[in-house]
């Protein structure tokens, strides 16, 4: 199998685990997609460094684009590449991030280290809006669908 095929399978597998096996349903949650948008931005920079500096190189037979050049960086955009990295890397990253976050939520649900929950940001403490590390922003968390 090529990297392209495995990467698509990896994404599908991670989504199936999230939706139907762990039932964490992160792909249906705003918190996940906003987090992923932030991660995605930094992933482009990180992938760009790995591939632009030639730390990791790819075989053209396994990806949409062509083999990494022996000298100099691959194209920044085009030839199946996004910020130097093969487009497949974005799928790889999505699968890694979704599986990680899905397991994180799953173990919380199973009662492992649920607390302390996140927050409040330190600036809210300084401005006197202390929420005690629970329900930052004063919102309650009931597990209801959030969109």
């Amino acid at each position, binding site marked *: 199998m090529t990297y392209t095929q495995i990467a698509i399978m990896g994404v599908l597998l991670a989504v199936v685990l999230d939706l139907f096996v762990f039932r964490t349903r992160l792909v249906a949650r705003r918190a996940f997609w906003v987090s992923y948008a932030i991660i995605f931005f930094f992933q482009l920079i990180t992938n760009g460094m790995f591939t632009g500096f030639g730390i990791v190189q790819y075989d053209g037979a396994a990806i949409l684009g062509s083999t990494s050049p022996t000298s100099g960086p691959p194209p920044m955009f085009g030839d199946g590449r996004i910020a130097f990295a093969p487009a497949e890397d974005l799928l790889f990253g999505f699968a890694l991030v979704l599986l990680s976050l899905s397991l994180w939520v799953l173990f919380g649900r199973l009662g492992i*280290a649920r607390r302390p929950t996140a927050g409040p940001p330190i600036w809210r403490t300084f401005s006197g809006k202390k929420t005690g590390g629970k329900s930052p922003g004063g919102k309650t*968390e009931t597990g209801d669908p959030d969109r």
Partner: protein
Amino acid sequence: MPSSLAYVGVLVFVLVGSMWLEVALRTHVLARWPRLVLVMVLVVWPFLLWDAYAISQGHWFFDTSLITGVYLPGDIPLDELLFFLVIPLASILTLEAVRSVKGWPVDDGSQS
């Protein structure tokens, strides 16, 4: 800095870019370390297997002057294992940072 630390240097960039959230946004991810360790121990396996297969098939390969030169079984550079630990950590820090600011639920049982 020796060039063999180039790969690890990128990971340090990721850590520096995410670990401050633990302090500034009180993400409390390290404070919940048993849960973090459990995620890390499980998530690395499918990706190490994928890595070993991809390396054996030549899907990707490494500039050996830019990695530590320490290898795991399956010809996997140690750097790759570190990647599979650092990225989940940074991802979880990001999720909890968003939750710290916005308070959005993920139904992880933290309110029950």
